[in-house]
């Protein structure tokens, strides 16, 4: 009776399989992701989308924040247009799979650089230079009387699931032999919700995020970030490991942002500096850096003037920091370890030679 339907089914199946029939082989994976991005003319950038100061949706519908500006800097360098970025909001658990599956080209999502994420035997990623030195901390209600980790013994602690945050928390408490109850949420937004509603005695996250969250509270003074720092969290962008062109390009775009700050090149003066360098052949290092003398960009597979493109679109590292995390921003975080090395911080760029 349903012979006719079986014919339809066969046709459907044939269609589906021909669609998938571009049979996979190892050879087709040879090219660098960087070439793919340039060919596409657009960067697929994985962000959180839910972290104040780093990446969140502003009412005009655009993603903004430090992580987002890193994406924009990359796009400016790779395809000469900082707006050619497609943002992909990612939850913590899915970010590495998204990177590995090719869903995104580059991950700029508050990700801590660790050994197991880096190593071939682990997640096999390639991390860029640190864009924000953070450390995990605990925030408690100031009136609760909790002053140290030991005071939290046996208490409930709100934490984001599947992150290093969760593991660090466990390490910190286990090493001191303290019991605790982790209440795990999917994102910081929910962690804050649980904490503010009084589900937990403390919430834990990177201290930058604690500060960012606290800035939004109706009574910030009522909450205190504990002195104990339970981890170091160097946050860095990442790409798939084993893809050197892509990894190098990423690394040197970040370095360029730092170098530009060291040299005092800003969004406002970059064009003037370029003009001045072009007129002054004695400024060899500056001319190389800005691509007035060609050579460096080409080695990375980028345009020679990629640094100029980047600074024009986002400004230098200090400008990016101030825009999103500086004293006048909604989420004011003292710059601390994220100052330039010359000013007592940890930010330093290897030479552009």
């Amino acid at each position, binding site marked *: *009776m*349903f*012979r*006719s*339907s*079986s014919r*339809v*089914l066969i046709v*459907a199946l044939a269609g589906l399989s021909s669609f*998938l029939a*571009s*049979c*996979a*082989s190892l050879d*087709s*994976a040879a090219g660098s992701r960087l070439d793919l991005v340039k060919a596409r003319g*657009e960067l697929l950038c994985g962000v959180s*989308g*839910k*972290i*104040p100061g780093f990446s*969140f*949706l*502003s*009412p*005009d*519908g*655009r*993603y903004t924040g430090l992580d987002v500006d890193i994406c924009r800097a990359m796009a400016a360098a790779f395809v000469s247009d900082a707006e050619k970025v*497609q*943002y*992909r*909001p*990612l*939850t913590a658990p*899915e970010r590495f*799979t*998204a990177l590995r*599956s*090719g*869903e995104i080209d580059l991950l700029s999502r508050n990700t801590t650089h660790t050994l197991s994420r880096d190593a071939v035997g682990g997640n096999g990623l390639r991390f860029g230079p640190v864009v924000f030195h953070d450390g995990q901390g605990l925030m408690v209600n100031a009136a609760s009387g909790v002053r140290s980790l030991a005071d939290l013994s046996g208490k409930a602690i709100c934490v984001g699931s599947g992150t290093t945050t969760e593991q660090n928390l466990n390490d910190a408490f286990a090493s001191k032999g303290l019991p605790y109850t982790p209440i795990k949420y*999917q*994102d*910081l*937004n*929910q962690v*804050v*919700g649980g904490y*503010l509603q009084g589900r937990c005695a403390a919430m834990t996250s990177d201290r930058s995020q604690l500060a*960012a*969250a606290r*800035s*939004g*509270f*109706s009574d910030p003074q009522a909450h205190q970030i504990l002195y104990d720092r339970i981890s170091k969290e160097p946050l860095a962008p990442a790409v798939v490991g084993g893809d050197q062109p892509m990894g190098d390009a990423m690394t040197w775009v970040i370095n360029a942002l730092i170098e530009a700050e060291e040299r005092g090149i800003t969004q406002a003066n970059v064009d003037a500096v370029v003009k001045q360098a072009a007129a002054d052949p004695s400024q060899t290092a500056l001319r190389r850096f800005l691509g007035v003398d060609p050579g460096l960009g080409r080695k990375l597979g980028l345009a020679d003037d990629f640094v100029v493109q980047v600074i024009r679109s986002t400004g230098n590292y200090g400008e990016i920091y101030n825009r999103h995390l500086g004293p006048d921003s*909604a*989420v004011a975080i003292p710059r601390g370890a994220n100052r330039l090395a010359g000013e007592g911080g940890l930010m330093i760029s290897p030479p552009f030679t």
Partner: protein
Amino acid sequence: MNRWLDRGITLLLLALLGWAGWSILHWLLVGADWSVVTTNLPLYAVGSFPADQRWRPLLWMAALITLTLLTLTGPKRGWVRRWLPLVWIAMAPLGLWLLAGGLGLLPVGTRSWGGLTLTLLLTGGSGALALPLGILLALGRRSELPVLRWSSAAYIELMRAVPLIAVLFFGQLLIPLFLPPGLEINRVLRAVVAFALFAAAYIAEDVRGGLQAIPPTQREAAAVLGLSPRQVLQLVVLPQALRVALPSLTNQAVGLLQNTSLMAILGLVELLGISRSLLANPAFIGRYLEVYLWLAAVYWLACSAMALLARHLEVQLDPARSAS
């Protein structure tokens, strides 16, 4: 039931309702801070769609709402009624064109799609894919050919055993692993495909129920008229079966709309996802109740409108009515 008991229950319920009603009203008017809703209205509607292009998704939604109202009020003029189904079908390509751009409009990537627009698109897109696939699976499951029957049954049963979120997880993160390197399926499309693959299994069972409700005499009656098996299926059996299955198909459609919210867990910024992003804005931290109530109202309206439309369709297709 005793009349006094009856009165007692009524009074108790009235007191409870009155108290609840008063507290809710008081909160709505005095306690709530609706700025989280009012400031972000465009975001709920269209997500991070470029601000100067927002008129496109808004236009599409306005067209959908107009069409819904027009259909439900039941226009009297014959020509309007004749054209309505065609206009409904045209809404899908229209929506895609308005959102994606091209043909004279500025192209906008799917990553910028969000909010209610994305919710509706996910629902419509996956529904349109799932229905034919579900019908095929239902026919396959009733086929005389064992291979066809077994494979359809295996697919249906497997899909129905798995939680939707696992299927979506598969769609978002694992499908790329099954594709040749370099072949990328767009993220929204992947969500639509995952939803469709899931919903098709449920639709197949509903359609099978409809097929079973058609007495064999109908087939015999059609066959003795000289119709080919395909014609019997197309002209006699399927139309009746689908009409029988329509109420449960309606439930599936409403379920599909509601379930698009699960994409929020997987990071797509549809209606619920965009709201969770908004709640991360320092200005709005902690305004759950307002946002959730607002979302509930939007979902409730959308789902009810869909159910009403389906009921309308049921009435339209009722043979008793079309005979008169």
